[in-house]
């Protein structure tokens, strides 16, 4: 760990986070959005582990949190994709900008 | 004899150490073990194919391949040469990149698993502290190439087969993982070496009730993981031609073929380490015990291939979710019980619980009666 200064890791995760956000905002395909969400969560995980390794008092807290984050990610993907399937079956499209029933 | 190979490697390293800086020597040891695995893998795969064809032949009351070399020993070499020389077709509308990438991605994990397999006393390549988990993680990656293969070839049959294989492998991964849990509970550690050490002196886990059940479940899951019959539905010839690797020919197909057999070998090896005491054995050198047990299991697999008819898809899935999964959960329960009072009492109670639960689940799983179709006549 002492090989790499903490800041670099943070920058790296920040970059990942930014790319993820950009992906969420621009991807037309809903599954694309879901993937980008995974990316964002992953960036968070990196930070968690980096901090648990360097600063936190009890090192295992970060790790436990990473486990929980992974569980949450799994849940989001499962529910998200169920919705995508239902959407696809009913509206024959999975493009976010085509699903605009609530448009004024 | 036992430490033959270990001493051989130590000797070689000292030889190198004479004229190389020590970090280079470390590197060399890594390289050596790497090379050994890389050679061992394909070699085993080749002779597994031969063994399988010989045994299936014997089962079908015929000789296996015996034309090429004495008793057909060179047959794998011939196959290899055939694979090399065959024309390599790439589907036109397929996804070229993914198409080429698929065989690589399937072989690499197969080889990576060898890392944690303890061939003999202190003959494991890298004794990771999370050996078992590593094995599980790597085996879970094998679903990817199947997707890539079936998707890249852009034809309906491979797509369908890909979906089925993936579903099948994902469903059986869970019982396999849970089957390992009792072993880890009892051996207090994830690393394969520790697990084998926990089984020394004929205290193989298989001789415990939960061990037996765990072994059987793990063995079934292993067979399914590497798509061997009777669970080889996806690339069943009669239905889906060659399943997800229909479009592959030549060397790419060889990779798929090799990955399949290497998976078979590693799964058998892991089964042995977890349940059959790995290289523990009274008389013979540790690695001999290990290879003996592993080939015994492989023989079992080939035997299965020759005897059992193929499973239907829904039976396959139902078997995993509705039977294996509950059994593993109960098994974990029983090991908890066993941990506190092993021996005769343990056998009695856990045996009763397991058998009782077995019949309970089979009773629960009423045979699937397809929904009665209501044909509305066109008005």
């Amino acid at each position, binding site marked *: 760990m002492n090989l790499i200064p903490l800041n670099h890791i943070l920058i790296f995760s920040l970059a990942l986070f930014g790319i993820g956000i950009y992906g969420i905002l621009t991807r037309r395909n809903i599954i694309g959005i879901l993937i980008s969400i995974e990316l964002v969560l992953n960036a968070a995980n990196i930070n968690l582990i980096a901090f648990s390794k360097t*600063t936190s008092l009890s090192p295992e807290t970060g790790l436990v949190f990473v486990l929980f984050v992974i569980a949450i990610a799994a849940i989001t993907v499962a529910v998200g994709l169920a919705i995508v399937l239902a959407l696809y079956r009913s509206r024959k499209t999975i493009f976010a900008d085509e699903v605009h029933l609530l448009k004024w | 004899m036992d430490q033959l190979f270990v001493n051989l490697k130590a000797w070689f390293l000292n030889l190198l150490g004479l004229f190389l800086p020590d970090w280079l020597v470390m590197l060399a040891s890594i390289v050596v073990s790497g090379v050994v695995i890389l050679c061992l893998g394909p070699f085993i795969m080749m002779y597994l194919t031969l063994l399988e064809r010989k045994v299936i032949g014997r089962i079908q009351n015929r000789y296996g391949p015996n034309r090429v070399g004495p008793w057909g020993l060179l047959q794998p070499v011939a196959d290899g040469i055939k694979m090399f020389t065959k024309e390599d077709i790439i589907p036109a509308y397929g996804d070229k990149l993914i198409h080429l990438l698929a065989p690589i991605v399937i072989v690499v994990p197969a080889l990576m698993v060898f890392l944690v397999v303890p061939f003999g006393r202190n003959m494991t390549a890298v004794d990771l502290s999370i050996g078992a988990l590593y094995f599980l993680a790597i085996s879970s990656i094998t679903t990817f190439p199947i997707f890539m293969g079936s998707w890249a070839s852009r034809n309906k049959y491979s797509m369908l087969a890909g979906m089925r294989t993936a579903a099948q492998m994902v469903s059986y991964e869970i019982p396999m993982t849970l089957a390992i849990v009792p072993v880890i509970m009892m051996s207090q550690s994830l690393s394969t070496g520790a697990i084998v050490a926990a089984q020394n002196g004929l205290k193989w886990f298989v001789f415990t009730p939960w061990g037996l059940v765990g072994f059987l479940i793990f063995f079934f899951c292993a067979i399914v993981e590497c798509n061997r019959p009777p669970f080889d539905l996806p690339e069943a010839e009669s239905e889906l031609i060659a399943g997800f690797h229909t479009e592959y020919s030549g060397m790419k197909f060889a990779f798929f073929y090799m990955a399949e057999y290497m998976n078979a070998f590693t799964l058998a090896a892991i089964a042995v380490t977890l349940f059959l005491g790995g290289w523990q054995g009274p008389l013979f050198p540790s690695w001999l015990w290990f290879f003996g047990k592993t080939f015994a299991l492989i023989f079992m697999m080939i035997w299965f291939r020759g005897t059992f008819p193929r499973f239907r898809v829904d039976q396959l899935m139902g078997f995993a979710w509705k039977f294996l999964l509950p059994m593993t959960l109960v098994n974990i329960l029983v090991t908890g019980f066993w941990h506190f009072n092993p021996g005769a009492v343990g056998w009695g109670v856990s045996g009763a619980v397991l058998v009782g639960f077995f019949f309970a689940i089979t009773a629960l799983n009423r045979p699937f009666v397809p929904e009665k179709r209501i044909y509305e006549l066109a008005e």
Partner: protein
Amino acid sequence: MDLLQLAIKTGIYTLMAGTLVFALGVVMLKNLFHAALSLAAVLIGTAILYLVFHAEFMAAAQILLYVGAVITVIIFAIMLTEHIAERSIIQRNKQSLPALLGVLALLVLIGKVLLKTPWPVNPSTLDARVSVSDLGVALMGAYVFPFEVISILLVGALIGAVVIARKDSRP
């Protein structure tokens, strides 16, 4: 010895760079399947990064859970819906410019914050190795409540997902 370290360091940086490239791939790639695979690559990259942090269990868990389960489900979803999306359809909607600007601004801002704040590096934890058993104890000890909640959440979510995605059996 520093040579080895140097090698490792360069290895790590290239790993990070590669992960970033794959991350961009996830966002930029037109073909969704490629995006999913590049996501798998990113996840594997981060798993390796965890190894650097000596969090082997995390790496293995990440690969097993994330790559094995999550990505598989995503690819299932893509397979089920992909055939309608021809390659030609543009995959990015029109608000990419403002989003880009926003993200860049975010990066700049938080970057500044990160660089400016002096993170208190606790030397004792640097070389502490968290073994799997410590994790197990923590999970079952201090964090048993979140653990139970997560399990309930998982069950609920999965059942919900099944209900939503189930083909409507009602006529």
